[in-house]
């Protein structure tokens, strides 16, 4: 991978829905291995921005480049193949398959052997091993035979992150991984995130400020589709505007 380029660069990225500009000329740069949090009130366009980066949505304007290559017009699967992985705000898993099968799907997704039709999947020992390792790493080994739809919310979140890590991404987009988790689950998720490979850049959407500031060193504040402030967490914490509109006395809406 070309190391002279930043991991992700967004230049003047915008997205319109009908007359509404949901994301407005956003500029954002993320370096390899960086821990970056995206915060902002509801409707600020955070998830839309994620969708633009991962390719679920096409940008109306602007360019997105990943390690120097323009990916603005690439389909989501092509971006994933280049190393952009993501989780979803509302977990999107394979509910009627087991945890192991979920992870296996993710393991083979970026493998050329996914087009093989003449050999049973079970005969690929290396894929099974890879899946097993992943399950182990995420503490899901005991649950491997459970159907995903029967899992607790917290475990589903873990599976979600496990899936996105299966392809060994360069950039991981985490959309509110803690949302709806109990304090205990939240804690273990946090630990899990801390343990993530430090060479991977992580962009995190998070409502819980403590988590966001504990996890990331850089913060981008989004409001009404625009970047309000961006910088090191201490600068952002100190910013008066941010405090006013976002970190004020009120609890952030969720």
């Amino acid at each position: 991978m070309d190391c002279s380029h930043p991991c992700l660069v967004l230049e003047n990225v915008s997205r319109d829905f009908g007359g509404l500009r949901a994301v407005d000329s956003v500029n954002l740069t993320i370096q390899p291995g960086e821990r970056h949090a995206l915060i902002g009130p509801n409707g600020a366009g955070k998830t839309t921005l994620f969708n633009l980066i991962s390719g679920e949505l096409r940008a109306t304007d602007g360019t997105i480049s990943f390690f120097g290559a323009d990916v603005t017009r690439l389909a989501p699967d092509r971006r994933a193949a280049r190393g952009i992985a993501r989780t979803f705000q509302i977990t999107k898993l394979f509910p009627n398959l087991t945890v192991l099968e979920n992870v296996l799907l993710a393991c083979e997704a970026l493998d050329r052997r996914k087009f093989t039709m003449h050999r049973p999947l079970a005969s690929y020992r290396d894929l099974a091993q890879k899946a097993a390792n992943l399950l182990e790493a995420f503490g899901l080994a005991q649950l491997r035979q459970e159907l995903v739809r029967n899992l607790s919310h917290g475990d589903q979140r873990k599976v979600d992150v496990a899936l996105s890590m299966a392809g060994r991404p360069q950039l991981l987009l985490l959309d509110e991984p803690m949302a709806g988790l109990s304090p205990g689950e939240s804690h273990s998720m946090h630990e899990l995130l801390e343990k993530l490979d430090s060479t991977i850049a992580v962009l995190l959407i998070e409502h819980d400020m403590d988590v966001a500031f504990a996890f990331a060193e850089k913060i981008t504040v989004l409001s009404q589709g625009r970047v309000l402030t961006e910088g090191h967490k201490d600068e952002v914490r100190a910013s008066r505007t941010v405090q006013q509109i976002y970190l004020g006395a009120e609890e952030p809406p969720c």
Partner: protein
Amino acid sequence: MAEFRQIGWKASVPTLVIVLLAAVPPFLSSYWVGLLTQIMIFAILAMSLDILLGYTGLPSLGHAGFFGVAAYTVAVLATAYHAGFWTCVASGIIIGTLLSAAFGLLVSHVRDVYFLMITLALGMVLWGLSNRWITVTGGDNGISGIPRVMTGPITFYEVTLLIFIGCTALMMLFISSPFGFTLKGIRESESRMKSLGVNTWLHCYLSYVIAGAFASVAGVLWAYYNAFVGPTYLDLTASSEVFLMVTLGGPGTLVGPALGAGAIVLLKNVISAYTQRWLMILGAIYIMTILGAPQGLWNLRRRSRSRA
């Protein structure tokens, strides 16, 4: 029974079925041999639809189209051009598959109800073609007089059985392969598969073509079995009956659709002799299947097992 399953019914049951199927013809009348032949042909067709409906999650209402086109190809080549047996067989499968490859381009980006509708429309186009392209298809009269290639119902039965075993094995291998597994992922959550790096369009397209290819095999067999081909082979009723076989038996299982095919063919031929109300019974089967076993009969069994 429970221990039996533990030994690994997955391998033993199919073997048992195959042995049974191979052994029974001498003990049955030619009529029953004929019915079993029919069941196997429709089982291939139903399993091929299951690849789409049950595994990929694409509800095709025009699947009988490929079956019919393959059958017509055989009929036209065998009667109008007096082509040899192998030419007919190969052409039937190839034309059916090519057609599904062409249609696949039109349908593979569409999902859910829209997929249902576009496949229904394509099915209607094919049906219209079979009805109106009279110089080739004989229109409403269809094409009769396809030469008999195998003498006697038992020979035909045995050949069908071999092809049935072959197709079933291939389809089982297909669905257990990494590719087949990806299809399940698409069924469960297409957008997640995309974000994991899978070109879901391509996978849907390939699965559509492969399902069309197996349907073509069934169509070729059906043409030779009846020695006749007509527009009713590819109309909406035919397509929805295959749909019923899959839904009744249990989508996403292969075994289920084969059983569903057996159940429908048997009911149709056995019950209709005793009642004039076959339509009503068939209608009731549709409704009761959905009410009683919305996931199909074969999945009922699996559910009770997983609960136990």
